[in-house]
């Protein structure tokens, strides 16, 4: 869904707000989800996340979502899966080195980030992704990180 993905970047500010509200909502829901048990929820929640974020962001389910630091442009769509900015090979007009027909996800990210309320988030240094989390829900992980005293 490339068209929708580009739309999402154009509307990064709106989505940023929705996302923040959604995160607050998730955290409120935390205790309930905790009672049901995260392991039992993992599959259905991950499926829901895959469908919704797949639609809007072409989400690749890395499990460590950083959309709010990348102008709502999913960095895992970069053929080099770069999470800290563009490579040195961006083509004239902002097209991707590896897939010349696609706009570089980091050109999109930069444009998206400038529409956002927290444009400085793109400057944050991102750690290497944990390959074990691929395919798992990042929503549940956020809840765990923000609500449990001792995150796993």
């Amino acid at each position, binding site marked *: 869904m490339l068209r929708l993905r580009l739309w999402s970047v154009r509307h990064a500010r709106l989505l940023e707000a929705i996302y923040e509200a959604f995160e607050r909502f998730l955290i409120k829901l935390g205790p309930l989800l905790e009672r049901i048990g995260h392991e039992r929820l993992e599959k259905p929640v991950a499926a829901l996340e895959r469908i919704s974020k797949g639609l809007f962001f072409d989400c690749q389910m890395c499990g460590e979502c950083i959309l709010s630091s990348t102008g709502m442009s999913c960095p895992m769509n970069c053929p080099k899966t770069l999470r800290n900015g563009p490579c040195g090979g961006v*083509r004239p007009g902002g097209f991707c080195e590896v897939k010349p027909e696609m706009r570089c996800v980091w050109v999109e990210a*930069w444009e998206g980030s400038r529409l956002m309320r927290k444009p400085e988030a793109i400057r944050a240094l991102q750690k*290497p992704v944990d390959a074990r989390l691929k395919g798992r829900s990042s929503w549940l992980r956020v809840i765990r990180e923000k609500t449990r005293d001792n995150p796993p």
Partner: protein
Amino acid sequence: MKFEDEPVPGQPFPIRPGHSSGGRLERILREGVFAVTAELDPPDSADAEDVYRRARIFDGFIDAMNATDGAGANCHMSSVAVCALLRRVGYAPVMQVACRDKNRIAIQGDVLGAAAMGVCNILCLTGDGVQAGDDPGAKPVFDLDSLSLLETIRTMREESRLLTGRKLDSPPRVFLGAATNPFTEPLEFQPIRLAKKIAAGAQFIQTQYCFDLDKFRIFMTRARDLGLLEQVFILAGVGPPASARAARWMRSHIPGVTIPDSIIHRLEGAGDQQAEGRKICIELIQQLREIEGVSGVHIMAYRQEKSIAAIVRDSGVLDGRTPWYPERGRNPGYLGQETD
């Protein structure tokens, strides 16, 4: 150019206070000497002498040489091995590490091994995509990116531990570098990306080919406004285009290379295009030197390495000094014979 505490060739210098490495390149840059580095073309060979022959053509004209890591996504002798061979005789190699071919386990192991063999400079790169090379079916790794690679090696050096937290008995004492491309989109993000690289551990920068000096000046002004110029040594990338055709080929085939039409037209109008290309390169070096924050030049002259000595000499950037090179024959580690 020798230092008073010049070690036996192959051994590192004593590390000065405030320095990260026992390397010659860091010393030269920190002394404020205008540095010259060049790219060594690694051989498709298992013969050490092929490495030495390629290194020797730079003798007396450059301060350090980069050993590329599968440049352009083509297989050549590995950068770790090229650097180890070069260190045996005392050269100052810059080991390039690309994230394309190895995961974090392999890369950290290489960093330890390289440092153990005397490598003092490491350049952290993302790496060209496999589509750029002659083996596009290879599996791209990209487990780390250039930023997380910088941070990983800095942590190894400063905190004496691996990414996992596991302690190192002895940390790699290396001077850390990164690349920058001031000429590609998103242009306004590039200075910020440089700031990120410095925050992640970059101490020196080697840039993509600088042919468009107007764009480069804008980039440097932005970097200065962000307060970056005091935090990093910037070596501007240059190279002699062999002909107008070669320049056209480079800009359409080598990822990230930008060459303005004005340069191509100038080459086309020249009788001897190769000589004109060298002249362009010399002029660029001289102009780059005048730009605030440029601490040296990095010369990439693929398949024209032999022209580098004359370019450096004619540009005058060495100010009469002769960069150190191994005294051949007297070095026990040096096994090769004198050729060409």
